[in-house]
């Protein structure tokens, strides 16, 4: 199997609303290497959640295709897709909405096996207990209902549930944005440990570039449904090319009063291009949408040599 666990070509999903068709995501091309964490950063309306849900086949894409582990699952009928669903799981944003209020934690954790008809009852319960422990929750929570847990604990239950079927690929859709900052750090560290321990490939979606930077190896920037820049995280931080990425980076307040930059570069919100941009490789794994390459001020010193080769 090639090293790409997931590869997406020209993926588009449109929603028909009263006021015309809204192109949530348009022409996204992306490869996710096995074992890596690809971060997706984008503000509201950038289509990052739609991308996650379309890859999970929760939405039927208009065109483009999704290959998972070498298998084209874009238009695979639900019946055939069902066994593969256990390979990719999702962690949701809102801890208060993503778990059933009526089931006990045990039932919630074992439901994936009930649906996929795997393991006997004892094995399921044993696995549920081991995962509860792995996400740092006491054994007693097995019989409790979710309204007895805090936001952070519920998110841990969500993570445990996503891991019940030993998936290869996890999509975390804004897993910590609804949590307090102190609890956030704990959940992020838990996710990092579990990923390395279980050798998971992860797609980490968030509007907070700091969190994405911390969790990911490579970061993709989405803007108005298009993928506009993709690079390893340090490269992206040190050498942003697309004006939107630059504005994004300069807007993030740095937690160090000495480096308050009174003067700030103006925020540029480019118009939405009619056609999805083509990504051009500009050196050391840094891809940026072609139509931005010709902008004058992009020719800064430190990446002039990049353009030459």
């Amino acid at each position, binding site marked *: 199997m090639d090293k790409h666990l997931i590869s997406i070509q020209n993926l588009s999903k449109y929603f028909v609303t009263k006021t015309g068709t809204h192109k949530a995501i348009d022409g996204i091309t992306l490869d996710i290497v096995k074992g890596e964490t690809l971060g997706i950063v984008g503000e509201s309306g950038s289509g990052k959640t739609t991308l996650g849900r379309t890859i999970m086949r929760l939405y039927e894409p208009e065109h483009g295709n999704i290959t998972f582990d070498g298998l084209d699952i874009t238009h695979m009928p639900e019946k055939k897709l069902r066994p593969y669903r256990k390979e990719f799981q999702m962690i949701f944003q809102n801890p208060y909405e993503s778990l059933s209020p009526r089931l006990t934690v045990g039932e919630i954790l074992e439901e994936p096996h009930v649906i996929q008809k795997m393991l006997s009852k004892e094995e399921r319960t044993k696995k549920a207990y081991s995962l509860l422990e792995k996400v740092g929750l006491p054994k007693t929570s097995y019989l409790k209902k979710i309204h007895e847990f805090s936001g952070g604990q519920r998110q841990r239950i969500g993570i445990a549930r996503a891991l019940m079927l030993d998936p290869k690929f996890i999509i975390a859709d804004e897993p910590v944005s609804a949590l307090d*900052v*102190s609890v956030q*750090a704990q959940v992020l*560290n838990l996710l990092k440990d579990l990923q390395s321990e279980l050798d998971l490939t992860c797609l980490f979606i968030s509007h*907070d570039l700091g969190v994405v930077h911390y969790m990911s190896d490579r970061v993709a920037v989405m803007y108005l449904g298009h993928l506009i820049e993709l690079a390893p995280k340090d490269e992206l931080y040190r050498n942003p090319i697309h004006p939107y990425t630059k*504005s994004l980076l300069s807007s993030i*307040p740095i*937690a160090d*009063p000495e480096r308050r930059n009174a003067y*700030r570069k103006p925020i540029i919100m480019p118009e939405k291009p009619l056609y999805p941009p083509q990504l051009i490789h500009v050196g050391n794994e840094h891809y940026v949408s072609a139509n931005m390459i010709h902008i004058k001020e992009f020719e800064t010193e430190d990446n002039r040599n990049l353009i030459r080769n």
Partner: protein
Amino acid sequence: MSSRLLEINNLNIAFGSGKNVFNAVTDISLSINSGQTVALIGESGSGKSVTSLSVLKLLPANGRAESGSISFDDKEILQMTEKEMQKIRGNEISMIFQDAIASLNPAMKVGVQITEGLKYHKQMPKSELRAVALSLLEQVGFHNPAHIYDQYPSQLSGGMKQRILIAMAISCKPKLIIADEPTTALDVTIQRQVLDLIADYKIREDASVLMITHDFGVVAEYADWVYVMFGGRIVESGDVFTIFNNPIHPYTKGLIGCIPSLESDGERLKSVYDYSFEEAGYKGRKFAPETYSMESKVYHAPSSLIEVEPGHYVRLFDESEVTIVG
């Protein structure tokens, strides 16, 4: 008029009564000089919003300021009647709220709402109101004020609505702006523009700002003075540079440590719980309140703010030997 614009001394606020009384905030003391931005930072449930609401006497029905004093411009707020308060609210102190989406009356044109304060406080004639509204809209960054004037709130984005609220807040040129998490619900690019707007107004009118937030990045970028709050108490306070360079209270260290920064070369995020109590505490006295995980019960033995260095206060338990009741 002393440079002290706002002075709060050991304010206690409680909700409910009898058996289920809940002390939202205990022993709060802080002061704001004119032209200064003071930040109140803490997580949800730390009592920072309640403190800000009490300055304008806008506490919900079952809340009341039990003791302490709030003096604004040498006038004691807690003793003021509702009539007197109405003259101050929006006129001398105005407030910007977090939930921009629902903070505007959906059935009223945006332009009209902006100038309500002027009409009510300054009895400005109707003819002038529209002109002032348009200039306010320009000040808060709208290029097409005439078009925006006639819009209804549901036709504007979150960021635009927050700018409308700011225009409302600064319409009567107040001396103090209280911003209660003004940008939590906004995207980071809009957040910076909104915070810059408030900062520009402060400089232009030599006003002061009480910024309520949970994001230390915002504090570092905009605040001059910082009060860190937890469990309804101030646990550490000082000017922004001392707090960042030499945080002492474990909770403050935890809050600063758990922000994922872009320059970190991959070392592990420290969460608030990694800064569990250094046994030494400070000069033999333990940090208060004892545990800070939001779920466990917090033990409130008597404690007070001690000045560990000029202008830098930390909350410590009064007696050195304190039995910790979980």
